[in-house]
């Protein structure tokens, strides 16, 4: 298990919590829809776990958004990326 860190420090912060709240879904409901444990949704929302591509696409299907609109890429500190 990785140590706890704020979601903002995650290299791939996401909007799962916001989208879930907007859809008025509980973690349990979302977890059932994407086929994971509800704790895993908590980990994802806190940015403590980065999902596999398969899970990311399942989440994008549930929210009806593209993966890029759910997961954001933080710019690395050393410089700009193309």
């Amino acid at each position, binding site marked *: *298990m990785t140590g706890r860190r704020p979601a903002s420090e995650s290299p791939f912060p996401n909007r799962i919590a916001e989208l879930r709240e907007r859809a008025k879904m*509980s*973690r*349990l409901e979302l977890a059932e829809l994407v*086929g*994971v*444990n*509800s*704790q*895993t949704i*908590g*980990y994802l929302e806190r940015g403590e*776990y980065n*999902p*596999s591509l*398969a*899970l990311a696409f399942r989440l994008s299907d549930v929210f009806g958004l593209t993966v890029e609109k759910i997961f954001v890429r933080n710019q690395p500190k050393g410089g700009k990326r193309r």
Partner: protein
Amino acid sequence: MDAQWLPYAVVVGTAVLAFLFNMVASPRLTRALNSPVEVHVPWRRPRIIAGKSLVTIWFASAALYLATLPQVLELPGVDLSGWSIPTLAIMLLASFAATTYKRSLAQQVEDQLDERELAARNGFYPLAHQTVLMFASTLFVILFIVQLGSNEIDLGTINSETALGSAITLLFFFWVTPSLVHAWRDPVPDEVSEEMRRALKDAKRELRREFRGLSIEIDAAGAEVKDEIRKAMGMGETSKKKGRSPRGLKVAVNGRLVKGASAAKKRAKPAKKGKRS
């Protein structure tokens, strides 16, 4: 000379057996005997304490059990032999608790885990085996150095009870370590379910709304009562109203004209003093 390799053979043999047991037999055994015991404490801290204390208890009881074995710890005036069975029992209980701790991820079968849990579980095993191997190697090196330093210990005459006790401890150590790693590094999942949190939030909101409604009603009732009192006072004794000079009106005090009632009071004080003296 061959007998000197006995501890090493025990350690390596146990390691291999435990590794095979963990990799092959453990999931099957878990599937058959998986305990429903689950620690359900809604707060984070007790869970951490529970996990860490479980690990501590395990190590303490294992160390004490090893110390009670013959030839291991011989101190003048100290007889630990009576502790042997209780500490072994505690160690076994702690092992059971660790392997069933929150349906410990380390002992779960693959089809019950999602991708994160699987990754976490698979992470426990290398770390656990690394820890055990480091521990066993260090112990072996220490024993070897001690043996080199003094010829008093003859490994060829190690008591069978001691060898058996050590082997049991090591075997349990290998079996339980992945669960102990999980218990120590407890990921602390969502302590309070989302539904419960939402229900609490709704209840709070409802209470606040009711309280606000009640306070508005009380204010309205209070205002009505005040109006009634005011009306009653106005209709009955209007002349008995406290006579306050309106602002700007000059009042005569000590033969001088001053502005307002408060100023008049201030001015009036020195005059009173003067009268007394």
